[in-house]
């Protein structure tokens, strides 16, 4: 157990150093949600008090503009970089366990998610927004969302991307429509009924609805039960898909060239 713990710490430390040194990505992960929050916060305020609009926009922005890009796009980029630099092969030769590798990545993005949550809610707080529900429940939703995004990131990274140039394609093609459908930038109440039905199979919809319910409306676990269950299912599914794709990628990497 201690060995796994040490490996996870080593992976997390390494990733955090790398992320902190590659400032461009880090700045994007801070600037983009900040700007989106300010923009949508003021748009929905419509010139009136910003209290309610920042209450309502902060959760969606955190999920869609912050966690989506860092916790899904980040692992995709990371896996591609490991393959391109051939460091993945070196890690395969080492005694590092794949589970430690995965949890090292999850821990890193949980730390980043925590930082992004503080920034998004810090800015919302300045403009009158508040977290109305249980912080613990909010934390659970964020943790499940991070696991779900990282699992999906592993899936896309291992399955669809071989080079750095391939990263933006799948993230944009699959991710952005899911963000829009999931009510990240617009309330889902404006969706036509058939799109609303479709939204129920969009994990981002459930992340948004769960976090909005707790954060903006002060709902409890019972009120958002359906979203929590859906989020749980998506998390398990994305972790399963991610693990399977990762295993098949490792198999390919192990084979190498003849």
């Amino acid at each position, binding site marked *: 157990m201690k*060995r796994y713990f*040490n*490996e996870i*710490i*080593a992976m997390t*430390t*390494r990733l955090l*150093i*790398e992320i902190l*040194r*590659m400032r461009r990505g880090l700045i994007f992960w801070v600037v983009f949600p900040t700007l989106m929050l300010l923009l949508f916060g003021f748009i929905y305020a419509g010139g009136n008090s910003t209290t309610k609009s920042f209450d309502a926009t902060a959760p969606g922005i955190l999920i869609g503009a912050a966690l989506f890009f860092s916790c899904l796009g980040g692992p995709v980029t990371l896996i591609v970089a490991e393959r391109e*630099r*051939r*460091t993945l*092969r*070196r*890690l*395969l*030769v*080492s*005694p*590092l366990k794949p589970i430690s590798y995965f949890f090292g990545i999850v821990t890193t993005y949980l730390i980043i998610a925590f930082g992004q949550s503080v920034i998004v809610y810090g800015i919302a707080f300045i403009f009158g927004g508040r977290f109305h529900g249980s912080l613990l429940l909010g934390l659970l939703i964020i943790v499940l969302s991070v696991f779900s995004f990282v699992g999906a990131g592993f899936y896309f990274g291992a399955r669809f991307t071989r080079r750095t140039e391939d990263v933006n394609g799948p993230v944009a093609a699959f991710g952005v429509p899911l963000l829009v459908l999931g009510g990240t930038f617009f309330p889902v109440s404006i969706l036509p009924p058939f799109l609303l039905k479709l939204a129920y199979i969009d994990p981002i919809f459930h992340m948004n609805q769960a976090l909005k319910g707790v954060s903006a409306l002060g709902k409890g676990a019972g009120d958002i039960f359906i979203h929590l269950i859906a989020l749980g299912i998506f998390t398990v599914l994305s972790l399963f898909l991610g693990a399977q794709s990762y295993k098949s990628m490792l198999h390919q*990497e*192990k*084979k*190498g*060239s*003849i």
Partner: protein
Amino acid sequence: MIKVHDLVKSFGNKIVLDKLSFTINHHVIYGLLGPNGSGKTTTINILCNLLEADEGKILIKGNPLSEKTKHLIGFVPQEISVYHELTCKENLLFFSSIYGLQGSEKIKRTNELIQMFNLNEYENVKVTKLSGGWLRRINIAVALVHSPSILILDEPTAGLDVEARYEIWELINTLKDNGVGILLTTHQLEEAERLCSCIGILKKGCIVAEGSLDELRLLVPAIQLALIASEDEQSLRNRAKSLGWEYRRYGDRLMLLMPERYTLKEVVYKFENIQLSSISLQDVGLEQIYLEVTRE
């Protein structure tokens, strides 16, 4: 220390390794040479426990190759596969942790490697800022964090200038002197000639020649070689035949295998009346041995 015995590996119908056997001991640099597709990479992958052999066995210090014996092997890939955003020291610390070193032991080993590889000046420099020779150094150093008994070096000096290449050779020799058994694959025959105490030449998945350079020289039926070019190659061949000398065609020149030593003047005299455009004499080296044993 590492004994590879009758290794067989196929991919579909293609037999890549066909009863491959060799042994590497302490203080030995074993050069595994062979043309592309001869099975070098597959051999490395099996030794690194990345691939499973279909048949045969590998013993490391008497124990079968397994996850448990992984720590006895260090692998240096051809590509610079370290983390470019980390410093040299950070890379060493990371890989030390991955190999289970902790606390003072980790720091001690990292500092030892920094000293051994002369990385003091660059220990806090990001890898991305290093030049070719230093990149190769850190690439090798991270493979040694766990003090392996066997080090696998895949083309360790590919793409380096002469000076950097000599420095890496010196390092490899130091490692050998420290007791590490080294498996070296390279396409640079000069490198193998300079470093390896034993050379195995791989062809179609099995060793077709093995031994020290002097032992391998015996495989070429010549004491000395003459490389000759002429517009009238047919006459050259006929004359060589009449002298009882074997010949090989390499590129645009004919290589004559001479059974005894001659001076240049004597060889020119033997080919009088044939217009020669170039002629040179040389001793049998690894290049000729390699070409001789790998030719179809």
